[in-house]
């Protein structure tokens, strides 16, 4: 009897596996087709050196490649145009072996490119990095630890003709020499500004390169109708192959369709005129999840949403009890649930889930009005106080702010919301002219350094990231130590210690962690939402079955 059962189970198992194999067979990639991807606005920049926003980044990820790229589950970096790399001399010298046979686009906007589709070599990388400095790329300073950065930046005075720390050893070997050991260096290189560019085209177009972008990515620019769509077509010489050695990409092209209105975008999606809808709006969240089931992908995004206190000014300066009181006064779960459909998980600390070093056991703040009251008393404001909260102009931020305003009112804390444009917001925050401000932070590179050091180290006060003007020498020391430590486990330990101290100091109201979402049509296959955010979803291995 038992034996029979076993045989039967075995049979079932085999049958199941065969079925699955069959299903997988039926799911063989198909060539051809256009994928229509929704964008909320026209990408401001298609030059990787200049882009700082997610819409631009979406297009850039499709047209360009970096040395290394982020693993889709946020578990570190993978080879891209670099096949391998190694660090030496205590992590101050990094040598990259480049992939052979990678070619630049032959075509852009229907015309031949100046480079003619030639192979990428190490010289191109050196040119790309130097060009970033020459064109004042807002992201060049991310790699300011490469030797000779300052000299090259102020080349008018120093006479430097090159970025000395970047060395071309041969056509396929590139070496970076750092001024100090910087543990997250390789992760930083996965950032979407560090994408290789051909000198010929960059020099031909100068600043106009923005409108004639040429890279090595799976798609090349075919047409750009401003405020309507960016049309990309397949790069026939793309370097990546699928598992069976077939050429990629499968798609004939991608259209980034600009539709500012969410309702209309969703209508278009329902009609099948759009294939992918990213950063899905709250208004239709419940309906879409019910209708589309697994086609609706959502996962934590490596980012944190917070309200910063201005730690350099009254009333929050030096009043830890007051800052903690506000933290206890906010019911994060219910706000998320009632105002944003529960899409943002409540945050305990600085590091978001998905970030290496995230501490699931961190004891943060939860809603506790009694404790808040007690702390208010301790802080010297037994009847509450009045304070201004500055928020940048965005419907979701305003929505959350109104809810928090109502909650704090219960404890006599009168929050005056002030909505300003993004530019003014940044200006005022970094000059410490606010009392409290909304800010969010989404990962640039997958390393705790990108959050803790950038946002809370006292050397980064102001525009470099520490908008709350927090400083704690103990935290500073821990973070600086972690920056140069090469042992991963030791680093994590340092970061956890630092984060614990920060949470106790409460320089922010720790609110939420972001989530990222992507809705795809059932005929879109193999599209996977990565942890780094919807805008970096790879499309080179996506195919569409006939609609």
């Amino acid at each position, binding site marked *: 009897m038992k034996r029979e059962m076993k045989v039967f189970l075995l049979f079932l198992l085999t049958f199941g596996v065969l079925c699955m194999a069959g299903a997988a067979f039926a799911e063989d990639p198909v060539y051809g087709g256009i994928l229509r991807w929704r964008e909320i606005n026209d990408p401001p920049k298609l030059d990787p050196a200049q882009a700082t926003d997610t819409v631009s980044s979406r297009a850039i990820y499709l047209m360009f490649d970096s040395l290394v790229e982020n693993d889709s589950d946020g578990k570190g970096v993978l080879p891209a145009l670099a096949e391998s790399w190694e660090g030496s001399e205590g992590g101050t010298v990094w040598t990259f072996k480049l992939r052979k046979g990678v070619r630049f686009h032959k075509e852009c906007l229907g015309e031949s490119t100046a480079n003619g589709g030639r192979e990428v070599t190490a010289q191109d990388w050196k040119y790309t990095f130097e060009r970033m400095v020459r064109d004042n790329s807002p992201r060049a300073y991310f790699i300011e630890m490469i030797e000779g950065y300052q000299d090259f930046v102020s080349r008018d005075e120093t006479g430097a003709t090159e970025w000395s720390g970047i060395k071309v050893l041969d056509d396929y070997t590139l070496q970076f020499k750092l001024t100090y050991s910087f543990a997250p260096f390789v992760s930083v290189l996965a950032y979407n500004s560090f994408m290789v560019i051909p000198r010929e085209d960059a020099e031909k177009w100068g600043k106009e390169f923005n409108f004639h972008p040429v890279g090595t990515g799976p798609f090349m620019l075919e047409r750009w109708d401003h405020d309507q769509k960016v049309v990309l077509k397949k790069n026939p010489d793309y370097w990546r192959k699928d598992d069976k050695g077939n050429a990629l990409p499968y798609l004939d092209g991608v259209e980034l369709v600009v539709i500012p209105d969410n309702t209309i975008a969703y209508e278009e999606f329902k009609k099948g005129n759009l294939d992918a809808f990213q950063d899905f709006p709250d208004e239709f969240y419940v309906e879409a999840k019910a209708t589309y089931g697994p086609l609706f992908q959502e996962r934590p995004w490596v980012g944190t949403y917070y309200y910063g206190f201005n730690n350099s000014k009254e009333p929050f300066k030096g009043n830890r009890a007051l800052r903690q009181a506000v933290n206890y006064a906010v019911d994060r779960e219910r706000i998320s649930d009632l105002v944003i459909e529960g899409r943002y998980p409540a945050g305990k600390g600085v590091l978001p889930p998905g970030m290496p070093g995230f501490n699931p056991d961190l004891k943060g703040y939860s809603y506790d009005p009694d404790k808040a009251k007690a702390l208010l008393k301790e802080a010297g404001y037994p009847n509450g106080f009045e304070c201004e909260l500055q928020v940048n102009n965005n419907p979701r931020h305003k929505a959350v702010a*109104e809810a928090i305003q*109502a909650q704090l009112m219960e404890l006599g804390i009168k929050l005056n919301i002030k909505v300003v444009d993004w530019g*003014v917001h940044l200006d005022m925050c970094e000059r410490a002219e606010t009392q409290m401000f909304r800010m969010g932070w989404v990962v640039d590179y997958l390393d705790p350094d990108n959050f803790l050091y950038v946002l809370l180290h006292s050397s980064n006060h102001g525009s470099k990231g520490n908008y709350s003007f927090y400083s704690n020498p103990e935290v500073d020391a821990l973070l600086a130590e972690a920056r140069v430590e090469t042992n991963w486990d030791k680093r994590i330990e340092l970061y956890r210690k630092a984060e614990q101290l920060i949470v106790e100091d409460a320089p922010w109201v720790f609110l939420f962690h972001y989530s990222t979402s992507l809705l795809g049509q059932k005929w879109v296959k193999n599209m996977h939402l990565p942890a780094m955010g919807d805008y970096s979803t790879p499309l080179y291995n996506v195919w569409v079955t006939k609609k």
Partner: protein
Amino acid sequence: MTERTTPAASGGSLWFEAWLRFRRNRLAMIGLVMVITVILVAVLATWISPYDPLKQLIWTEGKAVRLASPSAKHWFGTDLYGRDILSRIIFGARISLQIGIFATLVSLVIGIPLGALAGYVGKWVDDLISWLVNVVFAFPFLLFVLAVVAVFKDPSLVVVYIAIGMVNWVSIARVVRAQFISLREREFVEAARALGMPSWRIIFVHILPNALAPVIVQATLGMGSIIMIEAGLAFLGFGAQPPTPSWGLMISEGQKYLGQGQWWWAIFPGLAIMYTVLAFNFLGDGLRDALDVRLKR
């Protein structure tokens, strides 16, 4: 000679005649009644509104009162936070009227003296002021207001009415200037001048009262467009700050729920704007006919 001989003094009966004409004008009377209701709603808001306009009911009553459709409990439904939309519209009347009145005052304070100066003095003063008026006119109105609002770091209702007033004064100035040009050569002014009266006295005591009728008409008609501009500003996210129950802000917040069937958040405040603007337009038109003013629009 006393001031009795000037038409302004005999204006008493002039205004009375105007009132008689006004009363015969049915639309004008409707307009007056409508304006009065808006004012009453604004003044009595605290007593007549069924709920506190800022009270977020979701925290106590849960999702049932979130974006609830119109019902006996909430005539105009509720918004995302379970705030009663009717109550917010009632309190919104205060915001709109406040903006309308103060922006008009700012326009009058700038527009009357400049218009009077241009019309009375003439010559290069007129050239200069007229040039300024033309410059402001040539500016796209809404953009100009937006830019002026953007210049202030702290957005608030005060900023909004100052900004609107700074742009809107030109229409007042134009009317005043035209009146002064036509009045300054009239006998009673000549006479006053011959008596050696100081210019300011002539301007304020003799000419201005006679120039008032078209200014009143222009200001009344202007109220409507100011209220509309404020709504437009709030809709674009400038000016009134949450949770202020500004009608324009409510439309902009409710806009994204339109496509989901939750139309009440954005539609009812629009009706309120329309009602109020309509009221001032009727009233303005009626005043124009009653005071027999011809305005160049």
